[in-house]
């Protein structure tokens, strides 16, 4: 399936909580709220989506979809009626992944697209926030660099996810990594105090998701950018890693039409792990030319492993 370049997150089309199976790895119930500014602007939150991949637009935009009779929410084929951009939404240059918190604040991370012209290197480890009420975007938190982005790796932050159980956020950066040195970091952040609670060093990741493991423990699942493997590590109630609990969950190697996909996005639905895989080679090839495949894995309690049930 060709990757639709529109990397938009439809607000409020949250996957409902599937049946909670005992002894299954499973999702954490979503808690995010709609940003109030959407209604203030006069739009219906159900018929809008935030996008970082609108052709010809830098930054983040709010896509307003045409309402259709008989439909309760837009789908990927729904025509766009209007695109709104607050002036501040362009200031960080090109952005990639978006996540939301329980107050309706929106978080986005920068990532250069095709060239470095619109993204400042020193801001590639900065998380941006759109205030839920004012709709204004500003720098939310600049994370320390453990290595600088450079000519052989133009990226900093690549993954971000919000934990609804504890108001924790996980952010992954590959800044400073090169072909022979994996210098990436996963930061665990306390959203309220804006403090780093823990870091996991020397690991390059992109897709991130919090979920519960087969024993009910909260884990961060992360897709590696070098191998196509997905690992997980337990997070305790103090927002710290339980390092010994780190384990390999599965790999995308050899699967799908390409065989060398990396996990760009991970989400859970009930006891299924849904992984969007695409090529990633630490270069600035346009995402529009990268086909994306969605892999669905299911937790097999007897075998204590993930089984691929489909990809498309």
């Amino acid at each position, binding site marked *: 399936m060709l990757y639709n370049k529109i990397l938009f997150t439809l607000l409020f089309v949250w996957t409902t909580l599937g049946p909670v199976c005992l002894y299954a790895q499973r999702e954490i119930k979503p808690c995010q709220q709609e940003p109030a500014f959407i209604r203030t602007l006069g739009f219906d939150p159900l018929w809008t989506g935030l996008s970082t991949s609108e052709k010809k637009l830098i930054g983040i935009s709010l896509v307003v979809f045409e309402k259709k009779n008989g439909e309760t929410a837009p789908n990927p084929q729904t025509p766009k009626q209007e695109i709104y951009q607050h002036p501040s939404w362009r200031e960080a240059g090109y952005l990639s992944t978006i996540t939301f918190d329980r107050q309706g604040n929106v978080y986005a991370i920068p990532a250069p697209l095709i060239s*470095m012209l619109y993204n400042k290197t020193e801001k590639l480890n900065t998380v941006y926030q759109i205030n839920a009420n004012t709709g204004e975007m500003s720098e939310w938190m600049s994370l320390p660099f453990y290595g600088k982005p450079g*000519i052989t790796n133009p990226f900093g932050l690549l993954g971000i996810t919000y934990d609804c159980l504890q108001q924790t956020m996980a952010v992954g950066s590959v800044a400073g990594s090169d072909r022979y040195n994996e210098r990436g970091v996963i930061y665990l952040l306390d959203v309220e105090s804006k403090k780093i609670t823990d870091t996991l060093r020397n690991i390059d990741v992109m897709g991130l998701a919090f979920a519960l493991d087969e024993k009910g423990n909260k884990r961060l699942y992360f897709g590696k950018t070098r191998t196509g493997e997905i690992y997980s590590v337990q997070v305790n109630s103090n927002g710290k890693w339980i390092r010994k609990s780190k384990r390999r969950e599965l790999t995308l190697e050899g699967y799908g039409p390409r*065989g*060398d996909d990396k996990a760009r996005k991970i989400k859970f639905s009930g006891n299924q792990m849904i992984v969007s895989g695409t*090529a990633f080679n630490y*270069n*600035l*090839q*346009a995402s529009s030319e990268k086909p994306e495949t969605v892999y669905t894995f299911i937790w097999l309690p007897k075998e204590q492993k993930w089984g691929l049930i489909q990809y498309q």
Partner: protein
Amino acid sequence: MQKSGLIFLTILLGFFLSADAQIKNTKNQKSKTKSSVYLNEYRKGLMSPTVKDTQSFIIARKKEIENILKDSLPVKLFREKGGAQAMLAQKIALSDGFFTRYLFDLKTKKPLWNEIFGVYPARPGDIKKGIKALPGTLMRVEMYNYANNLTTIGIVDLFTQKLVSADHYPDMQPDIPQSLIELAEQIAMNAPEVEKALGYKPGNQKPVMTSTKTALNRTKCERSQHLCVAPTFIQGNRALWAIVDLTDNRLVGLRWTNTGEDGAVVTERKLQNETVADCYCEKVNTVEKYGWKMDYLLTASDGLEISNVQFGNQKVLNSAKLVDWHVSYSGTDGFGYSDAVGCPIYSQAAVVATDPPRIADIVEGDSVVGFMIEQKFFSELWPGPCNYSYSQRNFFYKDGRFRITCASIGRGCGNNGTYRPVFRIAFAGNQQNFYEYASTGWKQWNKEGWQLQQPTTQYDSNGFQYKIQTSPSLSYMVAPGNGQFNDGGKGDNAFVYLTKNHLNKDEGNTDLVTIGPCCNTDFQQGPEKFIGSNPESTVNTDLVFWYVPQMKNDDRPGSKYCWAETYYENGVYKIKAYPCFAGPMFVPQK
């Protein structure tokens, strides 16, 4: 000025290592044993003739394909197992219009190359809800379409003699039949590269994976979207993967792995990327030929850079490289891209090198007059819309002339695009002077500046617009493209910039990040930044010559330019390129 005449390029080396090239030194690398070899040129034959097949089994395979394409249904039937039942199942499937939907090109109705890979009793999971049949009467027919890289799976009822369901799966490939396994093995076992890697000719020793007891390993040809398998040879605790392309019937490349490695899959793209990175991004190579000597390196974002160029004992260039490609589309303000070209992995390139540089002879008439070094760059889905391909070609002649060129090979986001590549060419010598031709003779540029080649531009009687004096005894005359080079170029319409080369600060000597935006249509293409508001003296000093040609694309029949499209040949789709080459010729004058 001497015309270059019709240029025939004799491919000396399509492989990863030139016979003339030596590894000069390494940079940024740890000691690493080279374990992968990428052999075949990506999209071979795109801009040069393809090599003729000589192996009998490949000739036979191609003949078979040719004959089947003449049949009313261009499908090779599966005859290996299942007897009469399997034949009946195929006939039933092939008599159904939905199952055969993609046997022919949907527009042109030309036959596409299809093969039924297997016929099996249907499994419970194959039978969709609502389908009722007598026990044991349902059969599953798997067909592969090579042109579209598409699998069609049909379920037929032998009792009612009807197709009960069918599905088409793009980008999917079924398990291959024994005949194709044997063909892949033959291609691998007869490849000289496999023999060289193993140290012996495999002969009767068939490839086998001891762990899986199967001769074939999983692999993918992600870039070509072809059907690929990997016969694997075990040697001690190592395994040699030979990736074979069964759409083109060729060996793609080789890779050693340890047999104990878990889950590591060797694919076409990995082989290509690692070979190019190992041998050309992290190593400076040297070519010495016909009096010329130079280093070359694939950069992270400035294309192929040649450096320390000398002819005989004379230093000619410090370096020449392709900094950026600016692509703008008229009709849509500010829409376009600034593409950097360079290494396929760990780089800032948006369009990447998938093949090694190629060194080829330039033949005019019946004589070899020089050589060319070429690097091509591709987007993954080229020539699909909004995907790009570029070529860099540097020509060096036995008489001391040289030409720095590049081309867009389409296809881009529309037929209203203008390409503006940015060349940075630094001549050797710190007593340089620069002149332009005027009606009164050669006029020196005393300060940094820029100029646009226009219809009113004046040239001397030999077609030269500029003269770069690199020493008191040597100058290079500069002829911009005016359609005279017989490479399809229609004229450069180039911006030229002259800047002082500061030895104490970097103005593009090392890899440059994107130098300018996509869509400026005037002189603001990037090099003007190094001129600034107070242009410096350009008399008797080190200089940099920047050259930004402008090529407008065209998709009209008969005048296609900076364009590429697919066409039909022998049951599969191939690519036709219409490159728009541009770049100046430099002619020595003593």
